[in-house]
């Protein structure tokens, strides 16, 4: 059986993926520290600013994260055929069939692998949920970061009520990203093993492998 290489992900999508993933690694690590700054300095005059410094890293990573999310929203509308939001949602017969086939394959009921170039629809929906969570994460983050700015204040108050609730939701959403990452990394490897595309390399190179149609 022969394979052909097909262009799938644009460079912007790949850049977005890795800035998103890497910024989240930093955000989770620094976020946990902000919640519980375990390194107690206990001494005056040491000239170290651990909390201020960790918060700074959190905010820099937060801006990278925000840029990544904005890039993804742009691609949902203006990206290539695989990147558009319409390719990710179960809104066409082709997509609904793909969702069912994926569920059957993931639960080991059937061995059939639905060939398509973009995400499978189950993955696509999970990614959309993650981007929505990311929007809430960055709005609550900026609400805490710029508490006096009118625009963040009115959004923050409308969505969360007060700073404490925003912080609470910000913290709970962190767990979504952690859980997502575990399942996500497992499933892309699983697909790499079980499917022909070479899925993992596609997020580096942008290309997927497809059965060549005769």
């Amino acid at each position: 059986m022969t394979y052909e290489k097909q262009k799938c992900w644009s460079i912007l999508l790949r850049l977005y993926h890795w800035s998103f993933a890497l910024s989240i690694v930093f955000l989770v690590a620094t976020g946990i520290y902000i919640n519980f700054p375990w390194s107690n300095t206990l001494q005056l005059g040491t000239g170290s600013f651990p909390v201020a410094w960790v918060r700074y890293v959190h905010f820099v990573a937060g801006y990278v994260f925000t840029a990544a999310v904005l890039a993804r929203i742009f691609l949902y509308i203006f990206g290539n055929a695989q990147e558009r939001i319409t390719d990710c949602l179960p809104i066409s017969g082709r997509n609904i069939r793909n969702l069912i086939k994926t569920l059957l394959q993931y639960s080991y009921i059937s061995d059939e692998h639905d060939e398509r170039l973009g995400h499978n629809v189950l993955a696509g929906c999970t990614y959309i949920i993650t981007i929505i969570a990311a929007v809430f994460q960055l709005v609550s983050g900026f609400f805490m970061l710029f508490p006096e700015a009118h625009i963040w204040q009115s959004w923050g108050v409308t969505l969360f009520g007060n700073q404490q609730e925003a912080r609470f939701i910000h913290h709970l959403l962190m767990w979504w990203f952690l859980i997502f990452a575990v399942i996500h990394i497992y499933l892309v490897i699983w697909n790499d093993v079980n499917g022909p595309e070479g899925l993992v390399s596609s997020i580096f190179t942008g290309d997927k492998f497809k059965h060549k149609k005769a």
Partner: protein
Amino acid sequence: MADTVNKTLIPRLDRRGFLKGCTMAAAALGLSETMVPKLVEAATTAQRPPVVWLHFQECTGCTESLLRASHPDLGRLLLDIISLDYHETVMAAAGHQAEQNLKDTIEKYNGKFLLVVEGAVPTKDNGIYCKIAGRTAMDILADVAPKAAAVIAIGTCATFGGVQAAAPNPTGAVGVQTLVKGPVVNISGCPPNPISLLGTILHYLTFKRLPALDSLGRPLFAYGRRNHDHCERRPHFDEGRFVEQFGDEAHRQAYCLYKVGCKGPETFASCPSVRFNDVGVWPVSVGHGCIGCTEPNFWDTMTPFYERLPNVKIPGSGIVADADSVGKKVLGITAAAVGIHAAVGIGKRLIKGKDEK
């Protein structure tokens, strides 16, 4: 000699106390000292605005803290610059006479008087949980508020419902702004600093308009900044020096109270700069974290007071746990599920053998 036994029933405010009060208000408003004479002038020459002060579901703590401040000048100054025509705690009239006063004031000064509301308004079952002279609080508010020149809600109960609005809110208590059309100045706090009310009223007298408000209706001069962002212990926060436990060495060293649940990072107030009781203190300066009393829903969201974040309540199960122990469990279950999924996949391959394509 201080008037320790309060021989005179209505002690007169001397000029020094008067100037001092105006200066404190000017400082709180962020005005330069050159503005103090303007405030003094407005406070002495402007016609004293009639004020109606309504008490609903509350503990009268706001009035108490206002009138019984250790330094009585503030309360007296306030009584000097306004004409308090109806105030259930301090008025001399009682019964029908009191009700008549209220009626007369709102008719005579229709559109001109200031309305100050203290306490939340219960709305459940047509508001029967708070009645004064046979009328519900909802009725009285609906009658008086539209006739007022401005409405000021004082205290967290009147602004956001306070403790009686905490879950499950048995009487359906709400803050004044939920029921009143038009702007309400929210002087929140449990109790609020008297200077915030004084500043608002002096601003109104001097500039003939209400001070600038934040998106929750609180005057920016008093609620424009988070306690955490102007706290004297902030350097300890940035440098990572924390109290781990009340009474420990770090607590004696006056380090930051973040890890014992200080809500300064989530609370807008003027406490660290204006302070209380004319002895220059606020909770953090005496070793207790802020509990976030000026914020909406503070009883529901700022508790537990000695933890960083609220607990997660799993509906229907009665389980209450902190966010991280729930998160760790869910993550553990996820990891286990991933492991099982992988094992099933491998098992299936072993059974079926490698059916090569």
